């Protein structure tokens, strides 16, 4: 069944389209980003996508402690219990949240975090390459689409603008003419003479001229680069890049969409160890979300952050104290604009007969439905576009409703 586009979103879309038509041209050249709805009202949404690379173990981040098979299914992987020191915090009768995700816990308590569990891409194999490609391309077959779902979604509303906190544009943002990238630079910023000289030479090279204009805009908003820049932005650490993303999103002339990535979730061995790979990755993720919350300031209320990974992991421990590539896992939707404080899930269970191929958490929801719900209800992307150019082959996937405060 097709859902109606909510009235609010339709109104926002219309207003934005009008503004783009009228005010867009004049402001375009100043910032490098086309100006759109710059009113700073609740109708001026911000979206952050956080890509977790390596395959987050959803059952480590959001353990299903209430499942009757929990202890047996996770033998060897369980840390301290609920209520113990360093143990997970109860979310509801079934789920808890890992203690290392402290800022997630606080957001959940403030009803600004929704966990979506037993979710996966439309992909049932276990290759990082293929799954990460689908995570960004939004397609149904690896490497079949040359751009990303978020780039295509923004292209339906170019007024939003987007920035990837990476040296090159991430696949997920490709397809948008207004998307650009930014990452810390230890290079000394170009001086005035060189800038003016290059601008003059680039009059016969529009692509370089446009790139320089965008690059300058990015540097004006966030940082000028230089020997100390890497340090200023946390040495390109995840929290450092999160604060840079916040600087972009909260700037009046900045982009409205940001993409961050964090690696280190491929926990094949010793994943329960303190200071192991997964431990550090979870702490870094938590610190980054806390930084984003703190530095977004006044626009936090207009912000939705989606945290997603390419696949979950095996339910049981493998031979080396870790978990191998699996299927379903957990995703997070958080931010001041989120109607949170719940776990959205059609729980498949952890019993021996309930697992996918006898080893993985069984997927009961398509991850694309989460993105579609956020794009439709927060960014006012039409369902026609969602089922069309944004997510080709998604006719059977309904956007997940109710993620955003209405």
């Amino acid at each position, binding site marked *: 069944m097709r859902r109606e586009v909510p009235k609010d979103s339709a109104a926002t879309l219309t207003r934005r389209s009008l503004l783009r038509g009228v005010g867009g041209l004049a402001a375009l050249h100043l910032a*490098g980003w086309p100006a759109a709805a710059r009113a700073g009202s609740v109708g001026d949404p911000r979206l952050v996508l956080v890509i977790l690379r390596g395959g987050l173990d959803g059952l480590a981040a959001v353990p299903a402690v209430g499942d009757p098979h929990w202890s047996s299914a996770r033998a060897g992987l369980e840390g301290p219990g609920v209520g113990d020191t360093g143990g997970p915090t109860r979310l509801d009768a079934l789920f808890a949240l890992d203690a290392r995700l402290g800022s997630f816990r606080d957001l959940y308590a403030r009803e600004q975090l929704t966990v979506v569990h037993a979710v996966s891409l439309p992909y049932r*194999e276990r*290759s990082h*390459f293929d799954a990460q*490609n689908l995570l960004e391309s939004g397609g149904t077959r690896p*490497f*079949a689409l040359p751009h990303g779902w978020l780039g295509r979604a923004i292209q339906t509303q170019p007024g939003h603008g987007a920035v990837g906190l*990476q*040296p*090159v*544009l991430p696949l997920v943002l*490709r397809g948008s003419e207004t998307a*650009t*990238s*930014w*990452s*810390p*630079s*230890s*290079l*000394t*910023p*170009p*001086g005035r*003479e*060189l*800038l003016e*000289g*290059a601008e*003059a*030479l*680039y009059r*016969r*090279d529009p*692509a*370089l001229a*446009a*790139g*320089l*204009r*965008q*690059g*300058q*805009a*990015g*540097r004006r908003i966030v940082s000028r*680069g230089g020997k100390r820049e890497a340090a200023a932005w946390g040495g390109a650490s995840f929290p450092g890049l999160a604060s840079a993303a916040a600087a972009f999103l909260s700037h009046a002339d900045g982009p409205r969409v940001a993409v961050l990535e964090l690696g*280190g979730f491929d926990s*094949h*061995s*010793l994943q329960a*160890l*303190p*200071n*192991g*790979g997964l431990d550090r990755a979870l702490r870094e993720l938590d610190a980054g979300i806390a930084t984003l919350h703190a530095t977004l300031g006044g626009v936090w209320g207009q912000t939705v952050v989606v945290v997603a990974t390419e696949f979950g992991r095996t339910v049981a421990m*493998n031979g080396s104290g870790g978990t*191998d590539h699996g299927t379903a896992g957990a995703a997070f939707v958080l931010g001041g604009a989120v109607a949170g404080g719940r776990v959205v899930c059609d729980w498949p269970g952890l019993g021996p007969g309930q697992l996918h191929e006898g080893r993985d958490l069984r997927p009961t929801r398509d991850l694309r439905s989460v993105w579609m719900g956020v794009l439709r209800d927060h960014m006012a992307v039409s369902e026609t576009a969602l089922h069309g150019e944004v997510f080709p082959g998604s006719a059977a996937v309904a956007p997940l409703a109710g993620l955003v405060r209405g």
Partner: protein
Amino acid sequence: MEPTNRKRQAALATRRFGLGARPGEMRTIGADPRAWLTSQLVAEHELPKPLQELPSTGDDAWAFFGWLLDQGRAARRARRRGEPAPDARGSLEEVFHPRYERALQARFQVAADTDAPFRERLVHFWSGHFVISSARPVTVALPPSFERDVVRPHVTGRFEDMLLASSKHPGMILYLDNERNLGPRSQRARNPRKRLIELPIDAPTGLNENLAREILELHTLGVDGGYTQADVTSFAKVLTGWRIRVRPFFRGLYDGADLVQFDEEAHEPGPQEVLGKVYAQQGMDQGEAVLHDLVRHPATARFVATKLARHFVADVPAPSLVDRLALVFRETEGDLAAVSAALVTSEEAWTAEARKLRRPEELLMAAGRALPEQAPDGAMLHRTLREMGQLPQWASSPAGFPDIEGEWSGGDAVWKRLAWAQEHGGRAAKDFHDAGAVVARADDVLGEALHPDTRVAIARAGGPAEALALMLASPEFQRR
């Protein structure tokens, strides 16, 4: 040919097909730029000296596995004592980054010095076609020896030999998971308790399609080459058992022989059908027969021709150029000297405007040749190219680095190109008296490609540093 036209073609040859000119290079090209290029395809070429000193494939492979075994021991020791696990990622960087920087510096030194820059460009092109990447820890040390042992010997030889060498190199076997590719009806799948010595990575559990898929999609036919999922699965079964000989590693007896050999117990027995043909051979002959036929498939000729024309000539190359290269590839069954010669003798390759944006690595190599007084510095190249988003041999996917302008002309990218031009100009300025000396160098290395406006701007710059920055930032230096 008119003298002006000849000079223009010499400038084009150094930029489009070479690595950018060294001082004096334009003069050595002489009257016939095409002959200068084709002569680089036939001459015997020794392994450049800086590469002779780099470790062998066996040393590179052992470096990682030895490190991994040490990590395992350290982790077990820590666990016994109840201590936190050691910082594996930190240790990986500490051990392998200096190693990488030595290889990177050698690669740039070769690029700066070579008098066969077209040949060297072809090496880089084919390294970007048969991609293995240090981004996967398991292949962190292997790309330099892969390029030297797989790509260099065949760069003007047969495509089939390069494809075979690539598919049998431990770097490719590990990078695309064929070490974990186990035939579902193989002896070991039917009898899991039959243990073999394994590398210290995940033991194989079942069919792994990675290598088969990428050979079809990225190395031969291309994604639209007309194969199906069933072909991928069958080909993956064909490739089961192409694995690394583990025993010499663990006995410290590695003797330099081929590291990849046939593991009968992991191989899926029986004939397989790939692209409508049944392959009933035994052992590695089965896979070699598939590779032999893939080289002769028309889709492979077209895929390779398109990539070559796109890389050297234009993001959207003339269809007639692609057609001609594909025809030569098919008629010669993948003779890469013939295909490369066809590229540089095609009219379309000389009439197209020089609009390709140099990727960061190409840009820094061109600077290394234009300003050879500045010796390459591995650590600095590592930092700069990482920040610019093209750390060589460190691509984030087996598709390698993209080869169209839109991927490299974003805001961050152009700003950093300018910042780099300023820094590099500053470093090189001590070798120039004044802006006038920089004009002379720009004339020398850009020749007819130097635009009058750029020439005036360089001449008017406040000093040699500013003049060099403008030269490096100019559209004619950024493009080729």
